[in-house]
């Protein structure tokens, strides 16, 4: 059988299917309803942020800074969605999660959290023995194109978040040596986004995962590590542009980094922006001079 014969056979079968008129009214009604849900979320968030700004002069944080609880906005304030009070958005693709303002980013040692932290775009993790301190919470964000291999996903429940299909694992708590830890994970298939929350407090885990939103109007700055754990600027640029972001590159001496490797991304990985916004990438030219002070402020902090 050749291509033409296959095409002919399928069309003969398809032509036998009688199709009714397109239910356009139902489609538009369902679509508008889903969109208005998104809008309500955004409007409430904006109102909350305005109230906070008026009362306390607190702006909305838009960039991640490793290990620091707050950072000045590095992009226009209209670019990112307003987060619920006392939180900031961090995300993958169009999926975002509200993280408490006081949490750092990649505050880990040997892959283990050392303080309440978001873990994103962490890169290679050195092997060593570290005991996790008690009463520490962490939220891991990972890109996962397929159903995560985490065994908990065998019991995951299919749900929808803003219309997108997702899988949520049961909340499980275990006693590990002196600490009691609860974990739950959420995977959003379309966004390839995996959020895993771990905390000694059940309420913290629930609060984190219940804040997840999917909104096509916003997109997260993608991760910098490629599959081979290299931080190549070219792969990052392709990923960012595929998401609708613009990329501005600046080449500097990389302080020992090979040419083409990323020195810094601003705003940081995970920051929610609007499609069309610009991400500034500083790239190593392969020469040895130090990359300069302050350049690490918005790049993910290496673990170790």
């Amino acid at each position, binding site marked *: 059988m050749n291509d033409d014969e296959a095409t002919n056979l399928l069309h003969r079968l398809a032509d036998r*299917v009688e199709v009714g008129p*397109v239910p*356009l009214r139902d*489609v538009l009604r*369902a679509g508008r309803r889903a969109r208005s849900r998104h809008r309500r979320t955004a409007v409430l968030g904006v109102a909350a942020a305005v109230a906070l700004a008026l009362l306390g002069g607190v702006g909305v944080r838009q960039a991640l800074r490793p290990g620091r609880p707050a950072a000045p906005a590095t992009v226009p304030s209209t670019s990112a969605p307003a987060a619920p009070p006392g939180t900031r958005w961090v995300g993958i693709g169009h999926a975002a999660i509200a993280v408490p303002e006081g949490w750092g980013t990649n505050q880990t040692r040997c892959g283990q959290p050392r303080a309440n932290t978001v873990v994103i775009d962490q890169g290679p993790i050195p092997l060593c023995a570290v005991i996790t301190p008690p009463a520490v919470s962490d939220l891991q964000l990972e890109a996962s194109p397929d159903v995560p291999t985490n065994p908990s996903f065998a019991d995951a429940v299919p749900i929808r978040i803003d219309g997108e299909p997702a899988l949520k694992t049961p909340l499980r708590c275990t006693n590990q040596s002196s600490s009691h830890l609860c974990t739950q994970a959420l995977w959003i298939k379309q966004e390839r986004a995996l959020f895993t929350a771990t905390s000694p407090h059940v309420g913290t885990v629930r609060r984190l995962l219940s804040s997840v939103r999917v909104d096509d109007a916003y997109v997260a700055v993608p991760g910098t590590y490629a599959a081979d754990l290299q931080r190549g600027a070219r792969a990052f640029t392709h990923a960012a542009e595929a998401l609708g972001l613009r990329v501005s590159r600046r080449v500097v001496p990389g302080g020992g980094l090979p040419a083409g490797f990323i020195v810094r991304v601003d705003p940081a990985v995970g920051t929610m922006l609007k499609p069309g916004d610009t991400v500034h990438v500083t790239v190593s030219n392969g020469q040895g001079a130090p990359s300069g002070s302050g350049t690490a402020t918005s790049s993910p902090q290496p673990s170790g």
Partner: protein
Amino acid sequence: MDGEPDFSEYAAARWPALVRSAVLLGCAVAEAEDLAQTTLVRCYQAWSKVRRAHHRDAYVYRILVNCYRDSRRRRWWAEKPTDRVPDRPEGDRTAQVDTADAVARALARLSAPYREAVVLRYYAQLSEQQIAEALHIAPGTVKSRLSRALAKLSSDADLADLNGGSPS
């Protein structure tokens, strides 16, 4: 919504092809219409993205295939195995063999990944590259799936009957 007339025009134009594609993937007609409707609602929600997509139809078929897979997964959970075969008399099979039935049976015998590739290539007329994007697989995988699927269809007994008993 910005572009709502644009969306409505697109939805009306693609509706029959989406429903028929879902039937070819293995849905009953009513289920296929539900699937096409769900696909269009999701297109509406992400219309700004769909409109900007490099190949709009490839993007929309990706949504359709994802919805189809979700529906199969749910159905799989809902189905219970049984060791009792329904007592249903079979009619004269030779009387049913017309082209469409033969094709439907041959398609049903293909595994889901092969059937998806065949429907997207030979009915939706997507290119191999577009199918690769729609199914999140490598272009080489698309090529091999199509090649193997065509080989299976060529040796299918029902389709061979259409050609007077000799496989094409």
